[in-house]
């Protein structure tokens, strides 16, 4: 691609060489495009088409069940409604809070666990396996399990707490501390994933760096800040991006825990409810576009941070 911009040739030999090079380059470029084509088509089919269709639908009044109202173009009506939608606004704030809390705690816990299971001790393999169990359980199953454990009539958590004399009678955790319990479940579930990614990052740091540092008289803390942390930075960024995006589009835990309770809906729950329960595909699509833009904002911020960090 850069061949177009090359300055004018200065002599016969260079020209010939350049032309040969151009031919080769062109052939290679063509081949590259050819090889990329299948994956580009797949991306277009699974990402660009649905996204485009959602954007298109967000400008219509389409309904979920056909035959209720004829679909027509409504311009920016949906977006106008969206600006004044307090339910969606509340869900954005709640989702951002959820993201901030869970990602911060998951990162702190995940890094600690990764450092522990990265050190050599007996039973390390078993430990690594056990650590992954919460991550291996489907989210809906895990959420339902926790909901039952937290239940105010038959929940095991109340039972244990009463037996240990921590509380006098059953608490309704889910209504009294909604954000705390939902964050706790998410942290329980995804900390292993964070730990796993960071562990992979830790394993590529060469052992001799630490040996050299030890010879130079660096203590453990200095080794961590001067060697581990900087070399782990790429892994940390990957973890933060993955977890933030995941947390921003959280659906299952909120759906299982709170269903349609006002003020306790994540962005995705509101969008799903608008489309499937209320039947407003058009307005729901506008909500989805808004969610997409909010998440994109985070991606832009993270990618910028990575770029700046690299330079």
């Amino acid at each position, binding site marked *: 691609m850069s061949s177009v911009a090359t300055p004018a040739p200065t002599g016969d030999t260079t020209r010939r060489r350049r032309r040969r090079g151009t031919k080769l380059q062109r052939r290679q470029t063509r081949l590259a495009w050819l090889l990329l084509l299948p994956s580009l088509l797949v991306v277009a089919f699974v990402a660009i088409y649905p996204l485009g269709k959602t954007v298109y639908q967000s400008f219509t009044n389409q309904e979920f*069940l056909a035959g209720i109202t004829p679909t027509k173009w409504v311009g920016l009506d949906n977006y106008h409604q969206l600006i004044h939608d307090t339910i969606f606004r509340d869900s954005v704030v709640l989702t951002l809070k959820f993201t901030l809390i869970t990602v911060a705690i998951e990162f702190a816990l995940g890094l600690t666990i990764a450092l522990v299971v990265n050190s050599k001790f007996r039973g390390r393999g078993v430990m690594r396996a056990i650590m992954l169990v919460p991550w291996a359980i489907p989210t809906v199953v895990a959420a339902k399990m926790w909901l039952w454990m937290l239940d105010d009539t038959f929940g095991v958590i109340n039972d244990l707490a009463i037996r240990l004399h921590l509380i*006098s009678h059953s608490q309704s955790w889910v209504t009294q501390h909604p954000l705390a319990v939902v964050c706790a479940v998410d942290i329980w579930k995804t900390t292993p994933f964070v730990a796993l990614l960071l562990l992979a990052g830790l394993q590529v740091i060469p052992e001799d760096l630490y040996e050299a540092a030890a010879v130079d008289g660096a203590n453990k803390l200095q080794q961590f800040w001067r060697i581990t942390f900087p070399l782990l930075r790429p892994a940390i960024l990957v973890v933060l991006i993955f977890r933030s995006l995941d947390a921003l589009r959280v659906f299952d835990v909120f759906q299982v825990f709170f269903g349609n309770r006002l003020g306790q809906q994540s962005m995705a729950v509101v969008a799903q409810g608008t489309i499937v329960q209320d039947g407003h595909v058009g307005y729901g699509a506008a909500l989805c576009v808004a969610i997409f833009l909010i998440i994109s904002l985070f991606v832009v911020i993270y990618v910028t941070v990575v770029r700046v960090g690299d330079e």
Partner: protein
Amino acid sequence: MKHRRLLILAGVVGVVALVASLSVVAAGSAKPTAAQHATAMAAPKVPNAAAIRKKYGGQKITFVGDSVGNGHVRDTALAKRFTKDTGIKVSVVPHPSASDASYAQLARAFSSKSSSIDVAMLDVVWPGAFAPYLVNLKPKLGKQSKLHAAGIVANDTINGKLVAMPWFGDYGILYYRTDLLKKYGYSKPPTTWNQLFQMAAKIQAGEQKTNPNFAGFVFQGNAYEGLTCDALEWIASAGGGHMIDGGKATINNAKAATVLDAFRNQVGKTMPRGVTTYQEDQTEHAFDNGDAAFARNWPYQYGIGAGAGSKVAGKFSVTVLPHGASGKSVGTVGGWQLGVSKYSKHKDAAIEFVRYMTSPAVEKFDAITNSNVPTIQSVAKNKAVVAANPYLKPAIADVPRVTRPAKYLKTHYNEASKVIYQGINQILNGTPAKSVLPGVQAKLNQILKQK
């Protein structure tokens, strides 16, 4: 060597996860009261089974059925019998226990023209919304429909087409502990909500000394369809209208606000704090576990409470719901219909299944084993049925019924009901009615305009 260790590791994780999820699934299905009850009486025989077998034997249909109480046990028993007699295979899939969630599930299936559902159970408020996707049953089941209550058949007839068959009826009733009323010096159940709160407070204060989890009153307070039904009873019984009257939202009125605030003030006092998360099953569980003095629920709870596995068998009774200071007792009309999907590949076999499921013999079976309200009058008056279901006695069964405002909302009912139950749930969670109801009323009027 390294790889093998990794494989073993992955294996261990997989096995542990599998065991964990299986135990969750097992815990979910391990309902104490389920099986024994429905097997006490055998599922009735299918009439004309041989003729049906000849025509449709070997076909496979899917029935999206009940999931509340012992409903799934009943469905499976009846489907098994039907398959045995006719050779039509029926796979029974329980629907989500929140009715609005199962509406969403059906809407998804219908909008994608899916043939995966042949027969579905439909809430009494849905036929209007789903009519375009349902088979007209009049040609084949018109005669049988005449046995059923005319009001429900009319509800299920859209533009002259019988889009669903009545299956069982429902109305809200009050369950109360006879032993505890006696213990605390009450001779009869409460007639007003305030009486109920007072009695609940006294009984709860006494019972909590030995059972810290005891609550005065439980009902369906979660943000879902059930709360719309419950709140309609509170508001209508206090003279506050029916949420929407004459095509206009009326929910924002002083009487409605008073009764809703009265309920709000009881949450965390005579009602458990968690009541704002309760659906039918949690209500039934709390009451049948001996953890509540009063409960509002549908008739199905009677059979479970009286059955084996219940801690309150013989210690409770039912009556009409209390009313507000200036109103009359009412009961919200619920109930379920069976419809056949237009996209079914075996419509005729599906219709035969509906014929069987809505026959007098099956309704009698359902009423006796599951305490569901028969929609066939002759069954509802049958001595054996009334003996098993005291709520069918005229004093309770003749209570004025109130209907959810579906007729004004048609296809927008689900959306409007969501606005209502979200608002009421917000009130129960502590927001004063006067700052919630104006918003609910405005949104309802906006939805009413959409038509």
